[in-house]
């Protein structure tokens, strides 16, 4: 554990320095991010909260390389993202980032197994490797019996577990979760949080954007995003 702690302290996975983002519409200019600074180390679970319109989604889009920023520096796993081509951004999304969405975003025509294997498929990994990895994750999330089911045959809690498994399948350096419990009831929300908490043992870095206060039970650090600025909140008790 001591060794892990060292890694945590010294390996910065995500680094944002003075990142700014402005959206210009016909009628106005919206300065969404006003110099965001954030560092997340390997194995950390971090939450970001904030009122609606505070820029959480914009920040997630930038972190997930789904959107660009106007100024500042954003590095992910020591890769400066400021001048990346679309192809490079696509490759980084595929290899280094896992995505978990509030609405799961599973492909309804693919089975659970195929959904999980999809990112590996895009990386052209062998079928054997894909099956082996998806089997590991399905076992980890207690979904082995659902391997051949389609998403619509699963409960919403199960669908989110499949989504998390898909996010982890390529061993990303960070998993970005947008309201992972937002569509779930309390019981299923707790199950999902427990699963995310378990990922700490694998040194997986997780960033969660949520309104759910229970998220703080599993996080190492919490931030609040307000008026385009990010601030740490009180340290966790656990």
């Amino acid at each position, binding site marked *: 554990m001591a060794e892990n702690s060292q890694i945590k302290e010294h390996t910065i996975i995500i680094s944002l320095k003075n990142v700014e983002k402005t959206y210009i519409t016909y009628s106005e200019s919206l300065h969404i991010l006003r110099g965001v600074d954030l560092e997340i180390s390997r194995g950390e679970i971090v939450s970001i909260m904030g009122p609606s319109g505070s820029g959480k989604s914009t920040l997630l*889009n930038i972190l*997930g390389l*789904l959107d660009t920023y106007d100024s500042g520096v954003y590095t992910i796993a020591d890769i400066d993202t400021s001048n990346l081509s679309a*192809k490079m951004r696509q490759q980084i999304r*595929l290899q280094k980032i896992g995505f978990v969405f509030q609405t799961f975003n599973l*492909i309804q025509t693919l089975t659970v197994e195929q959904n999980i294997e*999809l990112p590996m498929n895009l990386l052209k990994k062998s079928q054997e490797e894909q099956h082996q990895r998806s089997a590991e994750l399905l076992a980890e999330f207690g979904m082995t019996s659902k391997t051949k089911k389609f998403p619509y045959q699963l409960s919403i809690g199960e669908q989110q577990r499949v989504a998390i498994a898909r996010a982890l399948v390529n061993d990303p350096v960070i998993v970005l979760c947008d309201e992972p419990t937002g569509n779930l009831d309390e019981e299923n929300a707790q199950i999902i949080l427990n699963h995310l908490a378990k990922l700490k043992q694998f040194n997986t870095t997780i960033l969660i954007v949520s309104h759910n206060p229970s998220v703080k039970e599993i996080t190492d650090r919490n931030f609040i995003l307000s008026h385009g600025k990010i601030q740490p909140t009180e340290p966790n008790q656990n």
Partner: protein
Amino acid sequence: MALLTDYYSSLTSTFFRPFPEYDQVVERGTSYIQLIPTGSSISLDFQTELDSTFQEHTIPLLIVPNSEDLLSFYNNYIFGVPISQQKELFKSLSLQQGRWPQNSDEIIVGNKYLDMKNMEVLNHNFTIVGVFFPQYSYLDRIIIVDHTKLEQLSNNVGKTSIIFISKAIEANSDKISFFEKDYPEIDVLTTSEIEELHGQIGTFMNNLTQVLSVFTAGASIIFVFSLEVMNLFSRKADFDILRVLGSSSGLILKTIIMENMILLGLGIVIGVPASVGIFSILYAFIIVKVNTEAQFFSSFSKGFRFIFNPFHWELFLQNILIISSAVFGFALLISLIGMHRYQLSQLKQKY
């Protein structure tokens, strides 16, 4: 569209064409015309009178007794033709082996009987002295016997039922018109009239083909296009997810094109033979109906059958190439339009 119609025609004839048997006789190069389908309604006296009139006009006779068992004799076609006129009447068939008959015990036959020296017809042994090689397979079964002999053997003396005259004689239209004036109750169909009739059918079928081709092609394009656009629209969310997860726009385009090609290819594999088959049946049905209505001799209109033409590899490969190119082009077009319309290759912000 004319190109499409021509192509459809070529496609149809590449694989199979329907023809009632009569159609083949007329359309496939014989130089004789059918004159009077008479049958039993004409009295023996009248028949004799007709014969003598033909002789008077020096119109050569091709006679087939009106006997069902004779016509169905081993499914062969037996024609009774005066020996003296066989050479002239059958010159277009080109006797390619042997010689023309010199007496009523000698016959000439189609090349199906190439290896035979003798043949028994109606319990009479004939010597085969000549063989011709017709261009079309059904004619290879023809047996040409002296008409007087055939009448005698089949107990049909004087019962002429079908008479053919050569085109050369038809050209001397006076003889036909004199004949028609003398016998107004006889419906004389000359080659020109038959060709005209077939021309009408042909024109009708061409028009029908053109309308059907335009309609089918238009409807198919709209249908397939709409279906594919709906398909792409319904899967827009899936493509968005793929893009977010790290799929390239090229991979998405490739996926859509492959799907389209498989669907269109399947459609063509099933659709083309089905449409050609249905159209052929329709064509054959119309020909038979017209023949019947025109009171052509019923023994020549026993319904239709499919003739499988020799397989033309060159034409087949050419068609496959054209179809494949069309499928690929259409698949590419739909995919590009769909990609552009729904911005499938663009990265959507999912948070």
